[in-house]
């Protein structure tokens, strides 16, 4: 259930607009004809079975397709009013978008350095300032209590759930406008998943969140609006509550939501 205190996003301005997005790997189409928009301060869920093109979609948003060999992207992605391909400084674009991956990645630096990496890259050198940023990000990621006594221990030695929260803390340290989570809970235990979901519900007040998940119930719990991707196409987008009530337009969506495949 979407929380009762969720702000109404119907009238919110559009942060991200995607028009006719086509993605191909070495000529083979992975995604085509995607048109959608994501509004500010909403949690936008993307559900769908494997190989539907959900991860490729995320990659196209922050131009990570340029780092992948053989991936070609056509169409328009407008982020914050500007076409993403026209941003000359792709690093500035990526700094505005935080990403959380399916497999937890704790960089082989100390926990402190993990979270301080983005601010340091942005030029902040003052130790006191970095301390404040690190503590704030770890607090918001619900990890501070567990690591506050071992900030200098290696980030890659934390448990999976802790590493995933560390990834979120790292993403938060960038002060992003948008946070993209790609199936963040598949390698994480249920308790940590619930904690992270609570974190996301808090974070929606400050940023926009795109949540790709293969857990239909997770989308139901968190997302305001949900898109259903199937075999390289965006089949349907709608208000989450409405979709789960049965007001779907496409029979395939209904079949997926009812668990008949996926």
């Amino acid at each position, binding site marked *: 259930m979407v929380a009762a205190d969720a702000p109404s996003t119907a009238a919110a301005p559009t942060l991200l607009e995607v028009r006719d997005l086509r993605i191909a790997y070495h000529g083979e189409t992975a995604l085509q004809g995607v048109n959608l928009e994501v509004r500010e301060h909403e949690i936008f869920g993307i559900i769908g079975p494997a190989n539907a093109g959900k991860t490729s979609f995320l990659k196209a948003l922050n131009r*990570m397709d340029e780092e992948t060999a053989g991936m070609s992207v056509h169409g328009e992605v407008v982020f914050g009013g500007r076409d993403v391909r026209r941003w000359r400084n792709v690093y500035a674009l990526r700094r505005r978008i*935080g*990403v959380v*991956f399916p497999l937890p*990645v704790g*960089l082989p630096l100390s926990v402190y350095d993990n979270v301080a990496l*983005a601010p340091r*890259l942005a030029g902040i050198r003052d130790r006191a300032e970095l301390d404040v940023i690190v503590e704030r990000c770890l607090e918001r990621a619900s990890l501070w209590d567990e690591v506050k006594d071992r900030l200098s221990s290696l980030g890659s030695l934390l448990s999976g759930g802790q590493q995933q929260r560390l990834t979120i803390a*790292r993403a938060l340290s*960038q002060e992003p406008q948008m946070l993209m989570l790609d199936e963040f809970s598949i390698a994480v235990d249920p308790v940590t998943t619930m904690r992270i979901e609570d974190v996301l519900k808090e974070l929606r007040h400050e940023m926009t969140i795109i949540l790709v998940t293969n857990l239909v119930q997770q989308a139901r719990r968190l997302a305001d609006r949900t898109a259903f991707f199937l075999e390289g196409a965006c089949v349907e987008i709608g208000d989450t509550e409405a979709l789960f009530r049965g007001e779907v337009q496409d029979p395939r969506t209904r079949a997926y939501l009812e668990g008949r495949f996926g």
Partner: protein
Amino acid sequence: MFEATTQNRRDRRTQTLFRVLFGAMTVLLIIPVLIILGTLIVKGGPIVSINFLFTNPTHGMTAGGIFPALLGTVWLVSVALLASVPLGVAAAIYLSEYAGDNWLTRIINLAIINLAGVPSIVHALFGVGAFVLFFEFGTSILAASLTLAIMTLPVVIVSTLQSLQSVPHAFREACWNMGATRWQTIRKVVLPNAISGILTGIILEVSAPPARPPRSCSPVRCSSPPFCPRACSTRPWPWPCICSWSPPRSRTSRRPCPSVSPWS
């Protein structure tokens, strides 16, 4: 049901036989090493002393110390390292982190593999031609070191490449997604992680050439000065003649090798 059948007994015998066989072969391998080490320590041990290390050979190298050879090796290896390590590591970083999968990268890889396969006598001749004659370094430590550097370059590149590629790609992707440039990612995450592997490769490679007499002899012999590094009479510290180029005027006035002691 659990009693040993004839088949079981045969299997167990075969198993024991092979275990003993392989164990024996391993022991056979170790015996020569032990003999060599033992002879070295027993026969050579009493002779090694500070005096031995720091005096010159006398009587046509049948008595005295090994100082010039020691010094020469130190110089040789240091300069070779200085020349090959930065170049090799930089090349490996380029190939691992920046290079795309195109024809240029393939040519570079081919060149490195070929360089590794060149026989050392060809390296020696190249060293003589390029460093001793063309650049006019003369027969000097510099020429020998540079030749050695070229010999060790492919191994440094390959071992650095392997260390860099053993860093999981997920780390790099995480950094790129954060807006870090390639160099920032390399500097902050990839290199620190790979540095121990890189250093191991360098140490292993560097210890090998000077200790491989038949193979490395020719490059070193052809391009380096006779066993006694000439001390420049104008310098107090035992600098060997790094470069035997000198202005024409003083060429005839060089002192012959054996009478110059490094400390004079």
